[in-house]
Each structure stands twice: as C-alpha cells, then as structure tokens.
C-alpha cells in the first residue's frame, strides 16, 4: 500500500464517476476539487488575510471618504470668510475676487454652524443662509434636489439638510438641527432650528434663510460664496483668490484648503496602514510557503512516482503551481466576498453610527489585496521549485 493513497483516501467519494474520458488526469482543477478538505487550511489563511487587509484599507479609507463627503460642497463653491478681526468681507477684497476671470457668481451669505458626527469628532458644518434664488442656483450646481418636506420659510427657525447629514445626525423632519445648547466648538444657534426638508444628491449641503439668520444671529460673520463658470476651474480660481486677497482679513475655504490639508495629516495613517498590510502579506506569504512545503512533503511520493515514470520536473512544478494558483484565486475571491458582505452588514450598524462613512465595496481595498494571491503563489513556486530540484525519485519510491 503506497503512502500516497493512505493519506488521500478520504477523497474517494467525491471522485466517483468523475472519469471524463478526455479530461487530463493531472488537471489542477481536478486535484483541487477532490482535495478540498486538504486545501481548506490554505484557503482559509488566504480568506482571513484578504479580509484583514481589505477591511483595514476600507476603514482607513472611510476617514478620507468622510472628509471628501462632508466637504464635497467645496467642489461646487468656495466660501470666503472674514478673519477673526472682522465680521464682513472688505469691499476691496470682494472686488478683487470679482475681477478673477472665470468667476460665475459671488453670493452674499450668512448662516450658522451645526455639528456633524465624524470619525475625527464633532465637525462644524455651515448652514448657508442665502436667498431663494441663490439657493436654487447652488442646488442646481451641486446636482442636489429637494426630495422630502419643503424649503424653509423666510424668517422661520427652519433648515433643509442633505439626506446624508440627516442620517448622520439621525434626524427626522421636525427635529431640532441646531440649538442654544449645542456643544462642539463653533456650532450652535440661539434658537432651536427645525428640519423642514431634505435634499438628495451627491453634495452634502444645508440651507436656512437670510431673514432668519440675520435676525437671530446678527453677529455671525457675513461671508461670500463664490462659484466658477466652469466647475473644473474652481480650484485654480480659489488659488488665485488666495493670491489677490488680503490674507490677514480673509480666509478662503476651498477644496484644497479643507480636504487636501486634512489628507496631508492623514498621510501618517496611510503609512501605518501600508506597514500593517505589508506585514500581513509577508506573514501570510511565509505561512503559505510553509503550508505548501507541508503539502509537498505529503505528496512527495506522488511527485517522485510521476518523476520516475518520466514526467518532467517543469511539468510537475507547473501542476503544483497551478494548483496553488487555483486555491489562492478562489481564496482571494472568497475573501473579497466575505469582506464585502461583512462590511456591508457593518456599514450601518457599526460604522455610520460612529459617524464613519464607509464604502463597503472599496476598490482601493480590492487593489491592496491583489498582491496576496500572487505573492503566495510565488512563495509556493519557490518552495516547490527547490524541493523538486532536490527530489530523487528512487530514494522515495524505494522506501517501504
């Protein structure tokens, strides 16, 4: 009785009647299908590592996603606010901004701040107080539209919010959006402001009326809302603004100053994530190298026999590597599916409750896991290559 079939006897049932006349008996798919139980540990290791790497990337990306989502309005408009020394924009600065080519509209705004729950704590979010026509103009530029309730009545303590903000604050129509007892830095409003409508679309945005804002918060700094004729030119226009205004009197809140600055501070987090991922991939590759070494030892007699009856080492290597590739690919796929399902399940119950916007189908996460099957297959290939080079079929076949 050869050792080969003693260790692999359990596969007998699955192979019953599987004698396709022309399928190659050494096909890697056949091997994997009939040795599922034996290959399971390797597959599980891959599933877990893919899940680990993908979920780390998804969670780290959620920080970035939160920043870009919360400040997505800066893609549509740039807000120019006075420095702390004054309550309004200097007319000279306003004129200089108006003189920049490509500027579409300069809208006078006031308003108040409400606070959002984000992964980096309570974050102030501007509730813009603009005229009806300006509001409609901004909504149209932002691709947003009213989807529930109504627009605020001029002068009333009312606001409309994007559905994302509504979910973030877990609000319903009629609930208080901001009030005198709000905590969180800049946020707050002397009167409780109620939610009367919800807007839907790609851009998070919030509006109240200037009649209300000016009456309730006369000291809130008056600011400018600047849009570009060509939306893609807004970053350049914002940079130009910084160059022309008196910076000791004016602050420019653009995509660049808000989002990119936060991103820079996230760099160290990305570095840590990359290190963690590299470590996971390295450990997994080493582990799977060891696993394929064990597999090879278990199948030593099989390879020795095939080598003795004249099957080339390169062919044997190719078979072993394809088998590993099949397992790693399936493991990777299963790992991605597990990650996507778990992340989707945790999205609302875990992450969004903590103000973390996550994309459960993060393509970046997918990209980070792609090296895993390749590195594992490469490790297995190296291991098997070395073992095959040293293989002397005679000594193994002689053993009894």
């Amino acid at each position, binding site marked *: 009785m050869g050792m080969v079939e003693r260790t692999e006897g359990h596969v007998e049932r699955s192979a019953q009647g599987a004698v396709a006349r022309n*399928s190659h008996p050494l096909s890697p798919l056949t091997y994997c299908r009939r040795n599922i139980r034996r290959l399971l540990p390797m597959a599980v290791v891959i599933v877990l590592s893919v899940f680990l790497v993908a979920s780390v990337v998804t969670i780290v990306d959620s920080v970035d996603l939160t920043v870009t989502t919360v400040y997505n309005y800066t893609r549509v408009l740039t807000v120019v606010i006075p420095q702390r020394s004054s309550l309004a924009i200097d007319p000279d600065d306003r004129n200089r901004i108006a003189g920049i080519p490509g500027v579409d509209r300069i809208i006078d705004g006031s308003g108040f701040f409400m606070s959002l729950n984000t992964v980096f704590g309570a974050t102030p979010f501007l509730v813009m107080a603009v005229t009806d026509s300006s509001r409609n103009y901004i909504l149209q530029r932002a691709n947003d539209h009213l989807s529930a309730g109504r627009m605020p009545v001029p002068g009333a303590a009312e606001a409309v919010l994007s559905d994302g903000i509504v979910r973030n604050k877990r609000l319903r129509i009629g609930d208080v959006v901001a009030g005198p007892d709000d905590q969180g830095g800049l946020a707050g409003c002397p009167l409780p402001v109620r939610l009367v409508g919800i807007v839907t679309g790609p851009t998070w945005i919030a509006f109240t009326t200037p009649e209300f804002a000016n009456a309730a918060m006369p000291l809130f700094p008056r600011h400018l809302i600047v849009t570009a004729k060509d939306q893609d030119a807004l970053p350049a226009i914002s940079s130009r603004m910084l160059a022309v205004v008196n910076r000791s009197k004016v602050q420019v809140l653009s995509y660049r100053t808000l989002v990119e600055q936060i991103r820079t501070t996230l760099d160290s987090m990305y570095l840590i994530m990359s290190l963690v991922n590299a470590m996971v991939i390295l450990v997994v590759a080493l582990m799977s190298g060891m696993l394929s070494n064990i597999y090879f030892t278990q199948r030593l007699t099989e390879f020795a026999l095939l080598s003795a009856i004249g099957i080339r080492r390169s062919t044997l290597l190719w078979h072993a590597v394809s088998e590993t590739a099949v397992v790693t690919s399936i493991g990777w796929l299963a790992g991605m599916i597990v990650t996507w399902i778990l992340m989707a399940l945790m999205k609302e119950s875990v992450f969004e409750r903590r103000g973390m916007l996550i994309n459960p189908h993060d393509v970046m996460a997918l990209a980070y896991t792609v090296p895993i099957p390749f590195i594992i297959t490469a490790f297995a290939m190296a291991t098997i290559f070395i073992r095959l080079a040293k293989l002397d079929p005679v000594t193994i076949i002689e053993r009894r």
Partner: protein
Amino acid sequence: MSVGSETDASERITDDLSAAGVGLAYHDGDTRTDALIDVNVTLPSTGFIGVMGPSGSGKSSLLYVLSGLKRPTTGDVRYRGENLARASSSRLTALRRAHFGFVFQQPWLLGWQTAWENVLDGAPDVDERACERAARVMKDLGIAAFARKMPSQLSGGEKQRVCVARAMLNRPKVIFADEPTASLDHHNGHLVVDMLARYRQEGLVIVVTHDAEMLQDADRILVMRDGRALGWSTPSQTAGVALGG
C-alpha cells in the same frame, strides 16, 4: 551458470540495452557502498528476463542504472546507441516516458485519481488514442471493471495490476519491474508476472524478484551477487535454488 550460454533461437540479441563496466557507488557520509561493480550485460530487445540475487546484491541498483533513474558512477549504459551515463536528466526523463515502463514493489498510485486516471498518467497526451489504448490495456489485464474506482477501494493485487497497465500504456520498449510481487500473495503475484510476461513479444520485460517460482516462464535469468553480475541462468537451473533475501 555461464555468461551468455542460454539463448533461445527466437530471441534477437541486439545491443539495444547494455551495460559496460558499470559501477554504482553510494556515499553515505564517510561510508561508501559499491552497489554495482563492473557489471557487463547485453540485453535482448524483446523477451522476458529475470534478475535474481540475495538482498543487497545490487538488483534494484542495476534496474535504476539501466532505466536512467540513476547515473552509473563508472562505465557506460547504452540504449539504442545513446550513452545514458552521459545523457542530461531531462533527456533521461523523456526516455523514461517514451521508451520505458516501470512497476515498483509498492503499487504506487495517485490516491486522488481513479484507476483509469492513474493509467492515463503514463500518457504524454491524454488524447483519443491514449484513452483507447488505456481501455484496451485495462481490458487485457482484466481490470476494466476497476476503471472508476479509487486506489483505496482496490486490493494490493488489483492496484499492482493498475500499475502494470500504466507501465504498458505507452507501448514501452522496456518494462522494468522491481519486485512487483513482493507485496502480493502467491496468486496475485503470479497474475501480475503473467501479465508482464505476456508483453515479451512487444518489448523487453525485466523482472527482479526473490521468488524463483515467479520466473518459471522467463527466457533467461541474470544472477547478481555482491554488486556483480555473475551470469545468466535458466528457470530450470534456478528452480529450487535458494538465492537468499
């Protein structure tokens, strides 16, 4: 026993496969074992040849050297004019596949393949011809009924017959069988040797065994002792002679 004295008229002696001054030494640390010492044999291109000798006399070593599984330390092994002692290992592998068939003492089969698939492992291409040939060989050897069975469902004798079928699949010029009956009972042993013996018209069958009875039918028997080929014998001469092992 005299060298080359026993030759059937029916037997073509050519120098298809021959060993000249072959020595094989194993090095195990500081100790050196001479498994073969100055072996000179010339084998016919067809027929049924036995190899006998006490345990450790170098029978297996001779088969390995003749079949290109090992390179001799000294001397030449010639197969159809090619010196196997100088051939590259990929050339030897190719020769083993295309020209030689192997049956080992243990009925080595791939446990995850059916008997049918194990037989086909010997084929360079799994095409219609290989499948037809596999079906024929398995039928001839009386194992067609086991085609779909896994090795773990077969007895030792049945497994060894599958091994014989695999060895015959490529119509090898030479079949090397190293104690193919050692793990089998008397009945199964005979069955396997009879199958091998039937191949004598198609090619050369070399069977190593301790059991003289298995070689009753052999054309000639090579007698080995202490790494040397002592000479040729016949089944009648060898019958009842205790060769040890």
